[in-house]
Each structure stands twice: as C-alpha cells, then as structure tokens.
C-alpha cells in the first residue's frame, strides 16, 4: 500500500501530537492519584474495663483508621463489629431501644451479629473477636 508524502506527514504529526498529549497528561493523572500512606497493621485494641462498661450500651473504637463498634448486650455479652455501614460508608450506632444496630443515613438495620436485616445495606458488618483478659476488653481481628 503506497503512502503519499502528505499522508506520511499527517501520520507523523498526528502521532507526535498523540504522544505529546500522553506525555503531558500522564504526570497530571499520576499527580491526582493520592500516594498510599502505609497503615499501621493493627491486630487488636484495648477498650477499657469490662466492669465499667454498662449493659445495653455501646462505644465506637478506633481500630487503626477503621471505626469499630463495641456493644454490650442486655445479657452482658460483648460484640464487636465494623462500624462502617456496608451501604454508603456512614458510621452506625447501637440503638438501645431497638436492641439493634442502626444507620442514621439511610435507615439500615443490622442485628447484634451484624447481619443486615432491613433497609438498604447489601452486606453484613464484619465481625471482630472480643476477649476479656483480667477485666480488660481486648478487641481483635478474626484471622
């Protein structure tokens, strides 16, 4: 296939322009992507004394950068679940009147095992292990 002089020049100029665009845009797009900040690999956190944690109440813990909700049920059991709603990222709360976990943003409900039981949440909340060592509450990731 014969390529005329004009076609060849157009190809060269067009290709050059594309190459220039790519080399100009690449650093800009890369700049916009935030660098990954290394996260401390938190395996467990202490959450105070079990004897001071009243039944039918809850607390939000900082698990590294992640919020975790620690609940003491009416019967005295401890439950720890990821506090980030699986629907749209809001932070959930324990409703002592309903004995359930509630997300105020879109009215999502989870039971005390973190199962999504009503409203828009598509998945259950991740569970964390709770151990009491010498009255100290220890919340840790489930391996």
């Amino acid at each position, binding site marked *: 296939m014969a390529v005329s002089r004009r076609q060849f020049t157009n190809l060269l100029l067009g290709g050059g322009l594309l190459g220039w665009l790519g080399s100009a845009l690449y650093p800009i797009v890369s700049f916009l992507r*935030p660098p990954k900040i290394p996260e401390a690999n938190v395996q467990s956190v202490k959450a105070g004394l079990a004897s001071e944690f009243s039944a039918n109440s809850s607390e939000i813990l900082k698990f590294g950068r992640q919020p975790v909700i620690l609940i003491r049920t009416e019967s005295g059991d401890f439950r720890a679940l990821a506090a980030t709603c699986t629907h*749209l990222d*809001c932070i959930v709360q324990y409703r002592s009147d309903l004995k359930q976990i509630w997300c105020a*943003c879109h*009215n999502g409900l989870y039971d005390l095992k973190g199962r999504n039981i009503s409203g828009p*949440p598509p*998945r259950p909340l991740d569970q964390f292990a709770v151990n009491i060592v010498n009255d100290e509450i220890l919340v840790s990731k489930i391996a």
Partner: protein
Amino acid sequence: MGRRRNMAKRTYSWLDERFHISPLIEFMRHKYVPVHRHTVWYYMGGVALFLFIVQVVTGILLVLYYQPDEESAFESVRFITTKVSFGWLIRSVHSWSANLMVFFVFVHMFSTFFTRAFRKPRELTWMSGFVLMALALGFGFTGYLLPWNELAFFATKVGTDITGALPFIGEPVKILLRGGPDVTGATLSRFYAIHIALLPAIFAAILFLHLLFVQRQGMHEPDYLQRLPKEKKKLIPFFPNFLLRDTLLWLMVLNIVLFLAVFFPWELGEKADPFAPAPEGIAPEWYFMFMFQTLKLIPGHVLFVEGEVLGILFFTLVGIAWMFVPLWDLKQRPERRPRPMTVIGVAGIVYIIIFTIWGYMA
C-alpha cells in the same frame, strides 16, 4: 458637563478606532426582546447569573479567612461568623445565595423546557446550560463539606461512596475525589481546590459560551408568537429597557438574600468527628434530597445487582437523557393533548417535589 461628554466621546472613539466596537453597539441597539404572557421566564436565567456573581464576590471574601484543614476548617468558619466584622453576613449570604442560585437554575431550566426553547437552533444553549447546572450542583456538593461539620462530613461520605458503586471506574474515581480511601483532611483540600479553582474556571468558560449563544440568537419566542407578523408583536429594546428591568429584579433578589441572611443566619452545626456515629436526621442539601430519598427506598439487592448501583445508573441515565433532550424531542401533532414532552416535564417535577417532601418527612 459638555467637557465630560466630550471626554467620554473621545474615549469611545479611541477604543472604537482600535477595537471596532461600533458593530457591537449597533447589534445591541437592534436587539429586541418580545413581550408576551411568558416573558417573566426570560428573567430567571439572569437572576441565576446575578446570584452567581454574588457567589463570586462573597466567595473571594471568605477565602481570605477560611483554612482548608481538618483541624482548623470548622474553627476558621466559626472565626469568620463570630469575630470578623460582618463575617456572619458574608457567610450567610454565600450560603443563602448558593441555595437560591440552584433554585433559580432549576426554574430557568424547567421554564426553558416547557416553553420548548431548547429546540433548533438552541440545542447547544440547552446543553451548555445543562453542564452549568451540573457544575452548580458540583459547587454545592464541594462547598457543603468546607465548614467540616457533622452533617456535611456524612453527606460527603455518602456522596463520594455513591461514585464508588459505579462499575469499573467507581473505586478509582472515589479515591481520586477523596484523596484516599476515606473522607479526611485530604478530601477537604481537594474539595476546596475543586470549589474555588477548578469549578470556577470551567464554569466561567461555559457560562461565557452560554451567554454568547443567548446574545447571538436572541430570545426564544413561543410557537404562537412566531406565527404572528412582525408588526403585531410587542417588542422592547434589550438595551436599555430589558437590561434595566433585569437590574431592578436583581436588586429585589439581593434584598431577599439579605433578608434571609440577616433573619435566618446559616447554621454551622457540630464539628465533624470521623469516629462518631452518623447523627439522626442526616441529610444532604435539599436539591439532592429526592435522589437521597430514592436511594433509601431501593432494597439492598434487586435481582443480582446491588441496589445502590441500580439507583446511580438510573440517575446517570436520566441525567444524560435530560442533557440530550433536543436530540430526542418528541414532536407531536398539534391536536394531540396533552403534549408528551409536557407530560414528561410535569412527571419529573412532581417526582422531585414528592420525593423531596417525603425525604424531609421521613
């Protein structure tokens, strides 16, 4: 007096000699605006434009004291409203005027739709207007976060997480917007940059085009008026008659904004705490309420698709269809009533109103 007029004349001819402005003045002089029973809608775009100017002025003032930082953003806004002279007024005017601007943009858009002003030859005026509306919503969304209060924090979490639900591009876009996986100070910096640099630059360019189109093509006349012979139409000159009426209305709108800002000062709320549960009554700004309420109603899963993905896809498709209305405009036979486009527009408004009220009641 005579000397001053002479001076003005000399300045004019100095400019005209160099930039040939006479044809522009001639053009303005021969531009007429038709007067009829729908004339009132011609003023809505102008009001939105005026409120945009108010936003630019008050926005520049706020930038002088505002600090876009997780630790100090909330405090700096409190400083503006409590310590800076007239800070409370400037901030309140900025918030009220922003909301009214969105309101008038909606009014302007629907009046254009119902008077069918989007039809040939004004397709690009409509589309550029749609982009301006999308940018105005972007201004609202990014500006809402800046005071770093509880409500705005969670609204931003939800709003940015919604983009994450989009297939394939969702997650990278979400990280790009947030400046990381979560809503943090990095998000605040980005929203600030978007709000005061990126959006104004794009908005100004498109607004220039939009206004150029309007000036070049003149006002749209309703069908029945187009069929009238020229001598039967009532026309007023754009300059100075229409422009003076515009100015009078702008003055009235400014008074309304000031009244609202003084008697209903915009609240600051509680400082955001990324480790506190979302408070009850969490809500986005009113113009996102109908979408928010719709998302609330869609169940977790519809068949095999996540509910939120479905909701977002729905709004994206409706938005695209709305932008390209001039291309799929359903032309009806004149005897067919109600007109299909009117039905679509009314259905849209009814949906928005019902879901907004429902959102506030729920």
